[in-house]
């Protein structure tokens, strides 16, 4: 009856068989559709509401340009802006006199902007005939034309020519740059944490389901348990990428149709997010890799728990400490953002579960790449160790009795049983 075929699958092939089944089964399940839609519902509803009100908000809460000209010029600019607004609407910025500049001939608009005082996209200085603007390069590019238009109309009702606006780009110091990159690091860390926590739980429920289906013993008999674990981890990682892809697309769509409303209502503009030290392309690539590592690490831990638990209640009880620990390591990594090179930051990098978070923050702040290679190798080793340890624990603690021991099986039941009888 037998045939001359290879006597067994190698570890990768075995993991692939598991991963393929799990990926397809999860992806095409109704539960996954609801899982995907879950986070999208509030976002979509919010996005639609934002898009509907976007036009109104664009005018109501448009970008504000500060005026630091003479009192008369300020008044002329405000009047011209008011005259033009009904025709041009959101194409023009809101104008507002900078109170700090009033009556201060020594007012330094550049210093004012660099000190991040006020809430202006840019400040107009000089005269109506020779206006100047202080702001970031992006803001200058955006608002030079409209400001020239307003200044021209401020000089005469029907101007035939418009003054040239000279720009002064606000430069940021190294300290200011680091300070602003912290924002990028924090946002990236938070995103990584949320995605990991949201998605890693799938691994846990997958294994519990497998145990409920009682198919786990068939898998354990056919292929090594670490191949089962590896297959499950990577299947769920792939499913996570699908989820992130869907959410990412939804977020991109939402941003496209309602960015101004989002900026207006939250004050968050992704375009103004400071560029990370390693540059955006590499930062995004590292983000994907560190997400994979964080997911695999937490997933391997959850798999071990899932292997030991028999019921949803047990899973919840056992996973709670891990979730709390993950929160703590996230806080540790977040806390060390402002302490690059400190012992605490190195500890956060060295501890496998916090390492992806700490290293992603590093990528935002520090252009050196060699540490990423070391950290990734270390995290990979930790994943391997966790998978091996989890599968060993599974073989030792779970596969320990047959029919006779069914009631006793599992972590809690084991501890509850005063003395185990010989197993079936």
């Amino acid at each position: 009856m037998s045939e001359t075929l290879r006597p067994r699958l190698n570890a990768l092939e075995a993991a692939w068989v598991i991963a393929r089944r799990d990926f397809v089964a999860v992806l095409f399940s109704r539960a996954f559709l609801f899982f995907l839609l879950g986070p999208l519902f509030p976002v979509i509803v919010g996005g639609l509401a934002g898009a509907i009100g976007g036009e109104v908000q664009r005018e109501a809460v448009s970008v504000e340009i500060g005026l630091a000209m003479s009192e008369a010029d300020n008044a002329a600019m405000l009047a011209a802006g008011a005259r033009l607004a009904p025709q041009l609407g959101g194409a023009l910025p809101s104008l507002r006199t900078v109170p700090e500049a009033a009556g201060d001939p020594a007012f330094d608009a550049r210093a004012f902007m660099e000190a991040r005082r006020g809430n202006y996209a840019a400040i107009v200085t000089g005269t109506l005939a020779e206006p100047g603007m202080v702001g970031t390069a992006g803001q200058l590019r955006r608002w030079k034309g409209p400001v020239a238009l307003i200044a021209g109309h401020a000089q005469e009702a029907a101007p035939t020519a418009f003054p040239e606006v000279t720009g002064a780009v606000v430069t940021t110091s190294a300290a200011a740059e680091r300070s602003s990159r912290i924002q990028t690091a924090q946002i990236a860390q938070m995103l990584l944490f949320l995605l990991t926590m949201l998605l890693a739980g799938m691994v846990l429920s997958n294994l519990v389901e497998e145990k409920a289906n009682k198919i786990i013993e068939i898998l354990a008999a056919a292929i090594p348990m670490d191949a089962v674990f590896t297959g499950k981890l990577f299947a769920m990682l792939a499913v996570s990428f699908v989820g992130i892809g869907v959410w990412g697309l939804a977020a991109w769509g939402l941003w496209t149709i309602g960015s101004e409303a989002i900026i207006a209502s939250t004050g968050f503009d992704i375009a103004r997010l400071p560029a990370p030290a390693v540059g955006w392309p590499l930062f995004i690539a590292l983000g994907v890799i560190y997400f994979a590592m964080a997911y695999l690490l937490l997933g391997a831990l959850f798999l071990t728990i899932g292997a030991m638990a028999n019921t949803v209640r047990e899973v919840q009880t056992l996973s709670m400490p891990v979730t709390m620990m993950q929160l703590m390591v996230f806080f540790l990594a977040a806390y060390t953002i402002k302490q690059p090179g400190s012992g605490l930051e190195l500890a956060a990098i060295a501890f496998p579960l916090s390492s992806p978070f700490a290293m992603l923050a590093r990528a935002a702040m520090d252009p050196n790449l060699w540490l990423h290679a070391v950290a990734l190798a270390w995290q990979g080793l930790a994943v391997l160790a966790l998978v091996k340890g989890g599968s060993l624990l599974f073989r030792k603690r779970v596969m320990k009795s047959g029919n006779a021991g069914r009631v006793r099986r599992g972590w809690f039941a084991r501890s509850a049983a005063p003395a185990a009888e010989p197993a079936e």
Partner: protein
Amino acid sequence: MAVSEQGLAGNRVGGFSAIPVDARPLAIEAKGLVKSFDGTRAVDGVDIAVPEGAIYGILGPNGAGKTTTLRMLLGIIDPDQGVRRVFGHDRPHDIGRLIGYLPEERGLYPSMKAVEAIAFMGALRGLSLKEGRKRAGELLERHGLGHAADRQIRQLSKGMAQTVQLLGTLVHRPRLVVLDEPFSGLDAINQGKLEVMIRALADEGVTVIFSTHVIHHAERLCEGVAIIAGGRVPYAGSVEAARDRIPAQVRLETRAREGAWVAALPGDTRRNGDFFQFSLPETGVEPLLRQLIEGEAGILSLSIERAGLHDAFVAIAGEAAARQLEADTQGDRA
């Protein structure tokens, strides 16, 4: 795991004293297997040798250590002590392609179609999905389940789902099939079908090893059995040799109830309704018959029956284990 025991070196039926030594290589060979859980020995020094092509039963009550033994033999768990070899390999996973395993706790993915479930189990053993699906279709047709090929497992009856799982165990055409309590949960008709299937496998040269707490299945099917009780194996050998371990039983029916002739009955005589029952004396029944006739016992009937596996089990594993076995069997029926 190093194999250093002398009995394992040749990988031939050698230390398997109760089955005549033959030239067949061993499919499974285990020596001194020990496994403890939480300080309690679940399996305590199990020796088993199963020649290729045999149907072999592991017989014992629930909790005796059958499943743990099978799991050790298959490499699902490792023994604390002892050695095991499957087709001469220390690590059964290395030859997973040659093994089919049906665990006691039946398990299938409820949302999978029957044909896909079988193909998936084949894929676990190295079969391509395409080939697995093809064979699954053929197997389902052959076993009268062709109409259910595209039905989800959750839509099948329990018996059909069990058949699907059994077919999944066989789809990659293994050389060794290990079945843990395969008759459990099946009705009489399906039990009969399974017996036929097991015999057919053996006819094709496949080694079949199954655990059971139902003596009749082992007695009808097995060439060899290991009787297991309390984690130990007091007997491993052929069914015939086990039955020969105890003398044939004599059942005697007489017209007279009492008389001097009663003193002539052997010492182990017990009353069983209208019958006297005792072991066949070494001298045979003729001298006893003469005494009964002279004593005017009035013989109505006398039969000599060879001991069954149940009697052998009682003699080998003890009354307590036998009672437990019967209770398990009745529990199944209930």
